[in-house]
């Protein structure tokens, strides 16, 4: 048991740290040379072609005077060829987004259909999302089209991203299907796009918040719009004791207590600069938090989890896109990420786990080139090449630096003709690792995967069908982590099939959007941590197949009159996710997979009158199993109601706002992970001041 536990602990530390580190690397010339040496010939050709095209274009550009008409943004382009309804997507933007009672991006996403949130509870608890039961590592999160990465564990902690600097949050199942997309945007099972706000005026605002459990937050936002340049600086500091009360009440237990070691303090500074087709973003996040454990039977509070975690995440990214003539579009992305994580359990009070003080560092350099050709107005052909170089360092025993080069190449075509839309893409991914870890590096992965979409629009109704195959590569933890890693892992494969309907209706003050999709997913070679046959130790293994069927539907209604506005947003998810690993295993085969509710629904109502706004959100998540061993092992269904009332008063150019929020109004005790309770009813009071 010991070793298993030791390793379980490691795994848990990974789990609780899941999402905390990303690798990267200093973008030096040396590395560029290495990259160039290792990329395959045709890749080189692809780049050269694109670079050449760009050079030619730039030459042409130099001859013509620059003018602002060329500064097209994505929306203008997409409106020209209406491909929007071909992709299954959900978006929360602008006023609706700000009206929700949210503290992080994770809070907004839980209202989307088909999304399951995993949350370890509290402000500092790890928050990840899982779309259509594919698993958190299949969800790609993109800030302005550039992926947030974490080579170490492949997931992104959505708790680290604030909504205050976001214009919209969108979820795309399969691909977004823009005309000029980078290859990595095709490379995940589901994609979450965070679109940064482009300021339209100059302003400065300050927010102060006091919330339950000794939570204090201060936020400053300054933005400008000057001669075609737009930008903002957003800073936030927050500190919370997080010692929320919880209660477990059942036939055989009545446990009450307060969450211990659940405090967090973090600071976040980010800034962005835009001009036409150019956008850039710089982000820094620094935090310290306690890592509370599961609530288990104890005779007293004498021994609690004392592990602490420090994160420092930094990234800087830039993107430039331009349209030349009517038929050529070009985009280039670049990004550098540097992440640091420290996990410490070296405390005298720690009696239960190994006493470690581990530091993990990841650096990641990324570049992408995309080109789209539109020979006719109904056809767009695009290609993109992405390269990413990641390096992970950790002071673990028997661990050496791991370097990964990940290259992606995509060829995509989109056509739109008389209500018929079609899109197809072929993505090639190649992953190569280098390490001196004793077991050696994994074999490179080299694979093509396809995606096809079709849609037909008549009388405002769009019928769409799409199919996508994609895989997720084993993360560096999966492959190399001391005592757990398994370098022989194969990628986890997914196949998604979707059939959907979408309808939009607009009339004067009214707007209605409705969509419904039925889907079927298959996942093969799932990457899981298993105890090894008779060795009493745990290791990452490829094990299991799942089969999911489901229905996602959303209905949105908006009403906008002079002084009144109202919105109603609703979503429904019904799904049946079953295990298809071993037909001879009666206990498991065709049984529901864990953490997947059959039914969940969300309803948000927003009503506003002048500067007064009231929002009520209701969320229901049905029963889900957390183990298949016993029918009793279920997480109870829960209802969650949040309310928010805000008022803004304007005196000339200055504004003063007051906002009151009550979360979990009914004080329902619930959990996403067994024995990790979520906070019950809590309050937030926010005061804002702007000029």
């Amino acid at each position, binding site marked *: 048991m010991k070793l298993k536990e030791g390793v379980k602990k490691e795994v848990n530390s990974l789990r609780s740290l899941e999402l905390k580190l990303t690798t990267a690397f200093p973008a030096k010339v040396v590395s560029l040379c290495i990259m160039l040496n290792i990329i395959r010939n045709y890749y080189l050709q692809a780049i050269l072609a694109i670079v050449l095209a760009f050079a030619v274009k730039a030459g042409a550009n130099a001859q013509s005077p620059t003018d602002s008409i060329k500064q097209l943004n994505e929306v203008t382009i997409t409106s020209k060829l209406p491909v929007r309804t071909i992709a299954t997507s959900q978006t929360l933007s602008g006023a609706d987004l700000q009206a929700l009672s949210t503290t992080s991006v994770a809070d907004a996403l839980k209202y989307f259909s088909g999304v399951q949130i995993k949350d370890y509870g509290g402000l500092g608890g790890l928050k990840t999302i899982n779309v259509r039961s594919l698993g958190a590592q299949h969800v790609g999160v993109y800030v302005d089209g550039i992926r947030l990465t974490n080579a170490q564990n492949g997931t992104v902690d959505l708790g680290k991203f604030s909504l205050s600097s976001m214009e919209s949050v969108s979820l795309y199942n399969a691909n977004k299907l823009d005309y000029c997309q980078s290859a990595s945007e095709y490379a995940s099972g589901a994609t979450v796009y965070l679109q940064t706000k482009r300021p339209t005026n100059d302003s400065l605002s300050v927010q102060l918040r006091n919330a339950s459990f000794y939570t204090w937050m201060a936020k400053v936002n300054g933005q400008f719009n000057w001669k075609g340049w737009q930008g903002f600086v957003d800073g936030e500091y927050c500190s919370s004791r997080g010692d929320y009360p919880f209660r477990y009440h059942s036939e055989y237990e009545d446990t009450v207590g307060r969450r211990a070691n659940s405090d967090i303090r973090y600071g976040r500074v980010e800034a962005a600069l835009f001009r036409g087709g150019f956008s850039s973003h710089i982000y820094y996040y620094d935090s310290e938090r306690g890592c509370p454990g599961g609530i288990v*039977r104890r005779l007293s509070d004498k021994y609690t989890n004392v592990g602490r975690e420090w994160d420092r995440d930094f990234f800087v990214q830039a993107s430039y896109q331009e349209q030349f003539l009517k038929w050529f579009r070009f985009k280039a992305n670049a990004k550098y990420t540097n992440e640091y994580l420290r996990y410490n359990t070296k405390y005298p009070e720690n009696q239960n786990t190994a006493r470690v003080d581990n530091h993990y560092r990841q650096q990641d350099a990324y570049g992408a080139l995309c080109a789209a050709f539109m020979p006719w107005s109904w056809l767009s052909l695009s290609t993109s090449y992405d390269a990413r170089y990641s390096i992970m360092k950790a002071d673990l025993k028997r661990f050496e630096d791991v370097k990964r080069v990940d290259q992606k190449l995509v060829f995509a075509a989109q056509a739109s003709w008389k209500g018929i839309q079609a899109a197809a893409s072929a993505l090639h991914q190649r992953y190569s690792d280098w390490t001196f870890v004793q077991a050696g590096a994994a074999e490179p992965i080299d694979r093509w995967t396809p995606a096809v979409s079709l849609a037909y629009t008549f009388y405002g109704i769009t019928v769409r069908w799409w199919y996508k195959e994609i895989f997720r590569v084993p993360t560096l933890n999966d492959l190399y982590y001391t005592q757990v890693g398994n370098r022989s892992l194969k990628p986890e494969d997914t196949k998604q099939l979707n059939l959907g309907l979408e309808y939009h209706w607009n009339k004067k003050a009214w707007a209605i959007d409705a969509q419904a999709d039925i889907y079927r997913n298959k996942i093969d070679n799932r990457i899981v941590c298993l105890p090894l*046959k008779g060795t009493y130790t745990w290791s990452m293994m490829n094990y299991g197949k799942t089969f999911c069927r489901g229905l996602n539907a959303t209905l949105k209604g908006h009403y906008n009159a002079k002084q009144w506005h109202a919105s109603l947003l609703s979503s429904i998810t019904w799904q049946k996710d079953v295990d298809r690993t071993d037909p001879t295993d009666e206990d498991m085969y065709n049984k529901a997979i864990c953490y997947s509710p059959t039914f969940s629904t969300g309803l948000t109502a927003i009503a506003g009158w002048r500067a007064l706004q009231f929002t009520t959100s209701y969320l229901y998540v049905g029963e889900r199993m957390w183990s298949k*061993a016993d029918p009793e092992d279920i997480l109870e269904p829960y209802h969650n109601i949040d309310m928010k009332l805000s008022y803004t008063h304007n005196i000339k150019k200055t504004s003063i706002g007051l906002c009151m929020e009550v979360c979990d109004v009914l004080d329902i005790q619930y959990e996403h992970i067994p*024995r990790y309770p979520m906070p019950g009813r809590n309050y937030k009071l926010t005061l804002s001041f702007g000029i």
Partner: protein
Amino acid sequence: MKRLFTILCFTLYIYNACAQERIILLNEGMWQADNGKISYFEGGSIISNQWFRDKNGYKIGDTPNDIIQVNENLIAIAVNWSNIVQFIRPDGTAVAATEDIPNNRRLCSDGSYVYVTSYGHECETIYGTVYFDRGFVAKIDLSSFKVVATCEVGYEPEGIALYDGRLFIANTGGYAEQEGDHEFETTVSVVNAATMTLEKNIDTGIPNLFGEMSQSGRYLCINSPGDYYEVPPCGLIFDCKRALQGEPCFVVFNYPATYSTKTRDGHFLAIGSAFSYITGEYTFSYLTIEPWTFIRTGGTSGLSMSLPGNMLADIMNMAQPYGIYVNPYSGYIYGTDAGSFEGAGYLYQWSPEGQLLGTHKVYINPGHFLALPPYDWASGIETNHKSQITIKNDVYDLQGRRIDNLHQRKKGTIYVENGKKTLCNTQPRK
């Protein structure tokens, strides 16, 4: 007709024999999910998979890791992640619980005291809190359920056994891979149980003495999973008597014995896997060891790659073998399959000859067993002579351990002989 009658007789025999089988099985559950559970098996079927909860109205806790019979009225369970040593009666009702020994691992007892190994670094005793750099052994007095003495041993001590008033503790150093400030331990610590002082550390030269440790009189079967990289796993047979006499006392065999148990004739049955993180491959092994021959011949004889009857085929069919046990009262053999990591495990029952009698669904990670004596056994009041199980001439101590060598009985100690308690009044023969 005659044949039918024979079959009927045989079935009745099996049924009756099964009816006397009473097994308590610990399901570890998942870590930090507070879902450790106790299964109770009697008469050929599982009575309950949450036996402790049924009897007490609350849960046992997180990761129950070891269970022993302390005396005829008391059973001790080490609930590792809950930091609790839980005492129950043989009917499953709770008697007492202590959290004075955090990160407790394995247990043994002499009937008056319970000895617990711990990976922790502090212990609450009647004299106050005691701190340790390495791991320790705590001695719980059963009259008060308090810790009356402790003794520091190696890092992360695991298996513990009592022989001739000494505790033999297998040290693992299992946190070495994570902590980095120490290496895997290679020693067996010998501690005087009466004074709780360390008498000596016997260096086996084998790292990480981790896993199920079983005892057959003076012999121990100890496993080493190696370091998972260069040092391959192995097992060793350890002779406590020779160790106390200062003679060479252990012989190594090159197969892992991840799970082992003692049979009624004093042999060890062991199964295990050798896994290497370097190659990602594992090889399965299964052993029957006659310890006295093995020690006497220096390992050249006494070990065979065999298991009784069809056991091997049944075990090879398991997804994850997770434990093996022989009922000391009847010789029936038990094994567990942890199955896939989110599903329920299974309890396998074999006849003493190794014929599979049935499989029973239990709970997650079932791994630790305790057989209760048959109902009419050792009560001291009733004696049912109709018992179908022949236990003639078998002598047990109050912890349910079968005494193989009758000459080792100690004067003034109570033993159970032929189902009745007797006071031993002869001196052990040297």
